[in-house]
């Protein structure tokens, strides 16, 4: 069977790529620390030596639209073009072309349908920054095949938070039952508290630092019961009007299970708190840390 070698849950900040490309004398004061934390985080994936990446994200009204909106969708294609014109325009993100793993996509769809998730699928999917941001931070060579999985955290009515956790658990079961010799990592991106298009947007911190601190505790401790006991579709409006993206973190907690993160790190920036988590479900399969891994996280 395939080996699940790493589970990564990360915020996706579309300004990171452009910030990381600036010459030091033009970069903002927070850039050096941010880039350093990302380098440490990248190493947590590198150590797992994955062959294929299952990428969990959420389309931001790019290809998925209100006339035909899936709740959960799996890409099944040999290739994926990536990033959209308004992401190039607004964030300076590059267009990418990623390979797909159609065999794992097909297995994910068949097994997911048989395990109670009526997954939508797409054979021609241009993916957006919810998936390309983590590619650019933790696998910038973009050299591994992917299976993209999109969730709807954006266009109500949304699935309940419990459903995201359940889907995460199911994704793990499917990967661990996949008849393959490959090493699989699951990488999901979402948000902590976030406001977009409202009065609290683009403040000096995320809109609700208290929520962010609790969220980091839930995630880093693998406290699935704690998060499910405190987070509802209604409650997620309070920390910021785009905070339903936190449910992608809850999905990743479902993948990771009741397990403390092997790496947990965060960085308070303007607009959001960035947060980076890695779990190793099978620690014996992981390489020793290289000299790049610094005491920034709990690796």
């Amino acid at each position, binding site marked *: 069977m395939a080996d699940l070698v790493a589970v990564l849950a990360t915020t996706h900040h579309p300004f990171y790529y452009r910030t990381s490309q600036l010459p030091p004398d033009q970069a903002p004061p927070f850039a050096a620390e941010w880039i350093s934390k990302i380098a440490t985080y990248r190493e947590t994936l590198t150590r797992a030596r994955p062959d294929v990446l299952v990428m969990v994200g959420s389309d*931001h009204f790019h290809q998925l639209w209100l006339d035909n909106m899936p709740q959960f969708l799996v890409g099944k294609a040999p290739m994926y073009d990536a990033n959209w014109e308004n992401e190039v325009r*607004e964030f300076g993100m590059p267009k990418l072309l990623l390979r797909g793993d159609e065999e794992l996509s097909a297995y994910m769809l068949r097994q997911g349908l048989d395990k109670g998730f009526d997954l939508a699928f797409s054979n021609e999917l241009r993916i957006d920054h919810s998936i390309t941001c983590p590619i650019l931070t933790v696998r910038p060579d973009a050299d591994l095949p992917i299976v993209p999985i999109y969730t709807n955290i954006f266009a109500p009515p949304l699935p309940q938070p419990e459903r995201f956790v359940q889907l995460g658990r199911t994704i793990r079961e499917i990967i661990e039952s996949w008849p393959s010799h490959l090493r699989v990592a699951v990488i999901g991106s979402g948000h902590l508290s976030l406001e977009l*298009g409202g*009065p609290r*947007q683009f403040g000096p911190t995320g809109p609700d630092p208290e929520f962010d601190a609790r969220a980091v505790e839930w995630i880093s401790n693998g406290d699935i019961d704690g998060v499910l006991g405190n987070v509802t579709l209604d409650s997620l*409006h309070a920390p910021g009007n*785009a905070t339903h993206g936190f449910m992608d973190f809850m999905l990743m907690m479902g993948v990771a299970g009741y397990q403390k993160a092997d790496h947990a790190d965060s960085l308070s920036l303007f607009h959001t708190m960035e947060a980076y988590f890695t779990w190793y479900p099978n620690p014996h399969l992981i390489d020793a840390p290289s000299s790049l891994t610094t005491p920034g996280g709990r690796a």
Partner: protein
Amino acid sequence: MSKYLVNKFLYTIDRDHDLTERYRDDPAGTVTWWEQEMAGRILNCITAETTTWLSFTDDERTALATHDHVALFELGAHPFLALTLWIAMFERDFTEPLGMQLDYAEKLAHVRMPYPDIST
């Protein structure tokens, strides 16, 4: 209410460079043209399959025709769609980094929780 159609306007204008510029320069004219010619277009269908019943309310039409993002917020337009299009149209008019986004937020400072429902 036709929040769906307001969102469709924001979505289709944002994803087309020429339409973004046209809406920046001539909001009222663009809204009139779009409602007459484009509102019923199902996005992956030929024109023969045009939807026959979609139209803006007067409040929605006025908000769009006057670039009134505060009114759009209060009407329940999707905040991400409005913000993204406003950045495309107006960020260039501000010199400070995030100046446009902060001005956009300041104009909404009177809004209290719960925010208007954005369900469609």
